[in-house]
Structure formats: structure tokens, C-alpha cells
């Protein structure tokens, strides 16, 4: 695996590398393992989906990559530098209630930009308001936004600080199914214009096949990487094409679900 990566052409440079990452938590003096021997290389601009049974440690893995937790073993490096802690160059987007309810749409997007001169800050805010299609809602508070708008706002707030990597922790998990479909399209559109590296945790198989360049399948706890599936379909993906359905079925069987259920 490793040699194969080295042989690859240097054009898509490696962004994120996980080597033998393991994580264990202490509970009542007993240590139990959540993640074991996770090895993954992510190229710059790649869209990775992490799927696996619920409670398997997908979010833990995301928190490790985000620097919110430190692994008990192994190493995580970004651009060759070990991850030391949370950093504005990589922003974690939460499932819900991630936006600040006391700030307007503008205030939320500008939250991480207080170091910038006012003109540049305003210009960036305007740019990302446009990008997530929240024009006309600049002075609206999150309480008056729909669930989908709040998630778009969270993504805009993350993108505004110009991060290299976005970690999305089931960002559409609390939305209704129609909104979720629209949001996938929106996220792909944003990803295609901005080309950030995205690590996207989901338990939704369709979501993974529709969005990802590669889908990383985790086993149940203690989670190991079960398989990595490359989705070799160009965007926009036709979700009823034979290849799409084939990949979806393959993913389902890898997660261990018989689709005849």
C-alpha cells in the first residue's frame, strides 16, 4: 500500500497522513480500545467519506484529526507536521447547533475573521454569504433560519477562515431527506469551486457514494479500516446509473448490510 502511494505521480500532493493511529479511553480504570491501527493517506483536495456502524468511532477519528483529542498511539500529520491541537487551518463542522445563536449570519461568518481589516473582513463575509446562498439573510439570527440554512451558515463560517481541510461530522444528519439531498448538491458545488480537502463522516451510504472520491469503511468497535472504496464516477453523479448502483451495493455489503433486508 505504502509503496504504491510513493509511486503515484506527485501532482495531487499528500495532505493528511494517519499512521498506525490507535485510540483508547479509560472507563472505570479499564481502558477500552476505540480505534486500532488506522492508516490513511489523503491527497490535497480529496473528498473522503468515513462510514461505519454507529458508535464505531468515526467521530473520535475526526476529533483526532482535528486535534481535539490526542491519539494513544500512532501519528497524525498534516503537510508533514504533526497535529498538535485545534487550528483554524482545519475546521470541524458539527451536526447541529454549531452556529452561534447570539450572532447574525454576518456575525457568524465573520467570527473567525476578527484579525482582518474591516474592509477585507466585510468582503469575505459578502463572498461567503453569496457562496452559501444566504443573500438577504445577512442580519438574520440563527433562530429564524431553517436547519439547512444553519448548516450552510456553519460551512460558510468554516470556509471564511480559509482552511485547508474541512472536517464534517454528519453535517446533514439532522436534516430532512429532501433538504439533505439539496445540501449534498450545494456541498459538491462549493467543494468544486473551493477545492478544500474534505473528511466527511456519515452513516448514510447514499451520501457517501454520491459525494466521495474515496469511501473509508470502518469496522465496529474497536474500529479498523475494513476497506477503502474508490468511487470512480465523475460529478455530477447520476444516482441511478448502473455503476453508481454497483458501487452502492458493494459498499452496503462491505458494511455488512444485506440490501434485501
Amino acid at each position, binding site marked *: 500500500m505504502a509503496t504504491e502511494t510513493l509511486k503515484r505521480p506527485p501532482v495531487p500532493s499528500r495532505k493528511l497522513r494517519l499512521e498506525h493511529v490507535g485510540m483508547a479511553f479509560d472507563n472505570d480504570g479499564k481502558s477500552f480500545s476505540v480505534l486500532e491501527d488506522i492508516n490513511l493517506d489523503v491527497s490535497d483536495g480529496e473528498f473522503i467519506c468515513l462510514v461505519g456502524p454507529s458508535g464505531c468511532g468515526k467521530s473520535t477519528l475526526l476529533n483526532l484529526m*482535528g486535534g*481535539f483529542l490526542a491519539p494513544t498511539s500512532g501519528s497524525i500529520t498534516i503537510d508533514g507536521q504533526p497535529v498538535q*491541537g*485545534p*487550528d*483554524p487551518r482545519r*475546521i*470541524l463542522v*458539527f451536526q447541529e*447547533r*454549531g452556529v*452561534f*445563536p*447570539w*450572532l447574525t449570519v454576518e456575525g457568524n461568518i465573520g*467570527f*473567525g475573521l476578527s484579525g482582518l481589516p474591516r474592509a477585507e473582513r466585510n468582503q469575505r463575509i459578502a463572498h461567503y454569504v453569496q457562496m452559501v446562498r444566504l443573500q438577504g439573510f445577512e442580519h438574520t*439570527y*440563527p*433562530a429564524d433560519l431553517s436547519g439547512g440554512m444553519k448548516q450552510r451558515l456553519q460551512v460558510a463560517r468554516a470556509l471564511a*477562515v480559509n482552511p485547508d481541510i474541512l472536517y464534517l461530522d454528519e453535517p446533514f444528519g439532522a436534516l430532512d431527506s429532501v433538504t439533505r439531498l439539496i445540501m449534498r448538491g450545494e456541498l459538491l458545488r462549493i467543494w468544486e469551486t473551493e477545492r478544500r480537502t474534505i473528511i466527511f463522516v456519515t452513516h448514510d451510504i447514499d451520501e457517501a457514494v454520491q459525494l466521495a472520491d474515496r469511501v473509508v469503511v470502518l469496522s465496529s468497535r474497536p474500529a479498523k479500516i475494513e476497506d477503502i472504496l474508490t468511487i470512480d464516477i465523475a460529478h455530477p453523479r447520476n444516482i441511478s446509473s448502473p455503476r453508481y448502483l454497483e458501487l452502492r451495493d458493494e459498499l452496503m455489503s462491505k458494511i455488512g448490510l444485506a440490501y434485501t433486508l
Partner: protein
Amino acid sequence: MTSLAKTRGWEKFFWPLLATGLLLALWYYSVLWTATKVFPSPLSVQKGLAELLHKHVLWADIGDSLRRVAIGYGAAVVVGIPLGLTLGWYPALNQVLNPVIQILRPISPIAWIPVAIVFFGIGDRAAVFLIFLSALFPILVACVSGVANVPAIFRRSARNFGLSPAQILTKVVFPAALPQILVGLRIALGVAWLVVVAAEMIAVDSGLGYLVIDSRNSGKRYDLVVAAMLIIGLIGLALDFCFRRLERIRSVRWGFRHES
């Protein structure tokens, strides 16, 4: 549900007015039937109220009471909010100080009166101290639990965006806890208004509390006593009403469940 929207406009005023009217009538006839010579009827209270309003001393008393509350309560806000935020922010410090706070908190401010007089003598400062003390604890408790209740997700976001601990406190934890802090401030203002009356009965010779006790002591003017009580109630209501307006400020409104 169907008739609610239609009749709402006049019903909103009609029923409370009716209830008030009935209570006034009950009061009036109770005085009449018991033929009490001590307790005043609503009519004599009304005359007493008019008498108080014509005497300039009423406005001076109101001014004195409000001034004492403003100073004592203001000091409690200035001390209580930073202290409460600090205790909420450093749970270890809170664990050390919490037992002391919890023991002091249930002591009625009235019980502090002798101590206040020993510290400050008879006078304004003793009254202000009592108000300060009574307002401090609700503010402290609201700040501590307000900070503790800030969702972890907000703090993590703030760290993610590279904020320093001081920035996290001022830009995230404080605004996130503000609705709960406002509730504490409102309770504290209510308590302060209760306590100023009690303090003025003992520690000073002006203010609405003094007006109540003085009306009784100099000639058993119970009409003036009840009139002063009504004024105290109305001012308390007005203070609370003003405070509730703050809950509608847009950056805190999310924390309050208003009609919609």
C-alpha cells in the same frame, strides 16, 4: 382556538380589570362589615395617596429608595458578574468557594441588619450594603450555572477558530450564558427592591420603607401605610417590566421562549 384570536383584544384587559375590581370591592366591604377603625378602606387609601403625592417628601422618599437600590444593585452587578464568570470558568476554584457561598446564600438579608449596622453604623451605607448582599447571590449563582451550561460545542468551535482563553470567555462563553445571567439579574433586582424597604425600616430615616414605618409610628396612619405599600408594589412592577424589555434584545432573545 377559533374564538381565542377574535376576543383576545378586549379579553386581555377585561378579565384582569374585573379581578382587580372584585378584590377592591371585597376589600371595601370587608372594612365596612367588620367596622374596623384601624384598617383603612380603599377610599381612605386613595385620599392618603393623594396626600402623599401633594407632600414633596414622597418624591424624595422614592428617589432615596431608588438611589440605594441603584448603588447596592449596581455594585452587586459589578462584583457578581466577573466573580460568577470566573467561578464558572474555573470549576476547581468554584469547588473551593462554593460551600461558603451556599451557606451564606440562604441567610435572609434581614438577618444581616445588625451586622450591617456594626460595620457601617446607622445610615445609607448599611442599607446599600444589605441591598448589595441580597442582589449578589442570585447574580453569582446565575453566572456560575450560566457558564457551566454553555454547550461544549461552542467552546470547541471557539478553540478551533484559534481564540485565546480570554477571547473565548468574552466572545463565546459570556454571550452564550447571557440569557441565563439576565434571568439572575432580574431576580436580583426583585430581591433588591424587597430588601431596600426592609433596610429602610431600620437603618435610615428616609425612603419608602421609612415612610411605611413612620406613617405607623407617628399617629397610626394606616391609610398612608397602605398607600406607601401600593407605591412600593407599583415601582417594583415597573422595574420588572423595564427589565423584561431587555430579554427582547435580539442577541439574547434566542435564550428566551417568547410567544413564537
